């Protein structure tokens, strides 16, 4: 039994990839698609209320993206330490002005903040939209990073845009986000879903005979 326990420990240790902490609980819609989500994604999370959270992978990409945002919004000040810390973070969903404070918070405070946060502003009316800048700078920096990797002869995968939205969220909200991507000539998305059985598969096949 002890041997078995150790065997299992070893197995799980080797296969474990840490579940990335999620800013909000999202119940993804079910679908029959069994396509696995590709690696290297720009992830947009949208919860039931339509609040938007943003995440992109890679420490350097994130830090450079933040520096571009700092140039864009010079009124918000960051310390070098905060920029570094941001590089190692995951999804966030707040107004840019609140980001320095959010970075300094501990995990408990962040969770509490995420519960109350209205998400990243996406409202194009009145120029309040910040998500477009995140998307734009994130893509630019990711592309630069990927180019460097390629020049060094390392294998790279193309950046995919993944949308993880709650099944109960109003489609209107998702459309608003997709509209921002369309402005930047991005038309292809990976919609994250939970696999469901295909109840129609069997009858559909037999009906055809």
């Amino acid at each position, binding site marked *: 039994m002890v041997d078995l326990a150790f065997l299992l420990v070893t197995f799980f240790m080797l296969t474990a990839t840490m579940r990335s902490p999620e800013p909000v609980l999202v119940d993804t*819609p079910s679908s029959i698609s069994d396509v696995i989500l590709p690696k290297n994604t720009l992830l947009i999370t949208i919860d039931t209320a339509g609040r938007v959270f943003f995440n992109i992978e890679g420490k350097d990409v994130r830090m450079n993206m933040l520096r571009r945002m700092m140039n864009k919004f010079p009124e918000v000040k960051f310390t070098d330490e905060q920029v570094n810390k941001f590089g190692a973070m995951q999804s966030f969903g707040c107004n840019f002005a609140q980001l320095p404070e959010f970075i300094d918070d501990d995990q408990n405070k962040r969770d509490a903040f995420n519960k109350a946060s209205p998400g990243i502003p996406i409202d194009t009316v009145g120029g309040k939209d910040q998500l477009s800048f995140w998307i734009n700078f994130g893509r630019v920096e990711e592309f630069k990073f990927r180019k460097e990797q390629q020049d060094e002869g390392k294998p790279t995968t193309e950046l995919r845009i993944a949308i993880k939205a709650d099944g109960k969220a109003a489609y*209107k909200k998702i459309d608003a986000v997709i509209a921002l991507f369309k402005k930047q000539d991005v038309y292809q998305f990976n919609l994250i879903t939970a696999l469901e059985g295909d109840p129609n598969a069997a009858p559909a096949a037999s009906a*055809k005979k």
Partner: protein
Amino acid sequence: MADIQQQQSHRKGRRRSHLPVRVDMTPLVDLAFLLLTFFVLTSELSKQNAITTKFPKDVQPNTLVNNGLTILLGKNPENIFWYRGEFKPSMHLNVAGKGNQELLDVLKNANESVFEQVEIVDRQHNLGLLNYANWNKKRAEYLGNRSVPFVILKWDNETDYQSVVTAIDDLNRTHINKYAIVSVSDAEKELEKNQVPVK
């Protein structure tokens, strides 16, 4: 149980100790189980699935599509309206009620010939009668057929994300790869309101 007892040595020579050595394994086993529990809980057993969608550049909400199907996704996923071709204010909307199966049938009928062709090559490929290259080629040929209808999914303020994903699923399942997702027009909404709701 959780300890190791040293075997009595029967060597001739000098005996080092008379006492059997007892190694207590309990803390080790405890730790092993603790780690096991931790990794079981944190590991991701199922990878996330995703649908890949490609949206067309821009579709005006009132685009006229002759060889097309317009599907109105409303609040109630059990009650989906659809019509064929161009929109006329006096037209009668068809209802695909009772959940998902009916919409699937509507789409299957609209794309019947291509659907059957693709299903046949898929099955041949699955049975190993068709190699991958040929299968892909034939599939692309069938899917590029002009008779594949253009489907417009229309959403209103009450449509939830799940309904849209289910509809995209149905399109994928019936091999319709030309579709757009746009918001519903006022005229269509008006017409939808006048329809008798299905129970």
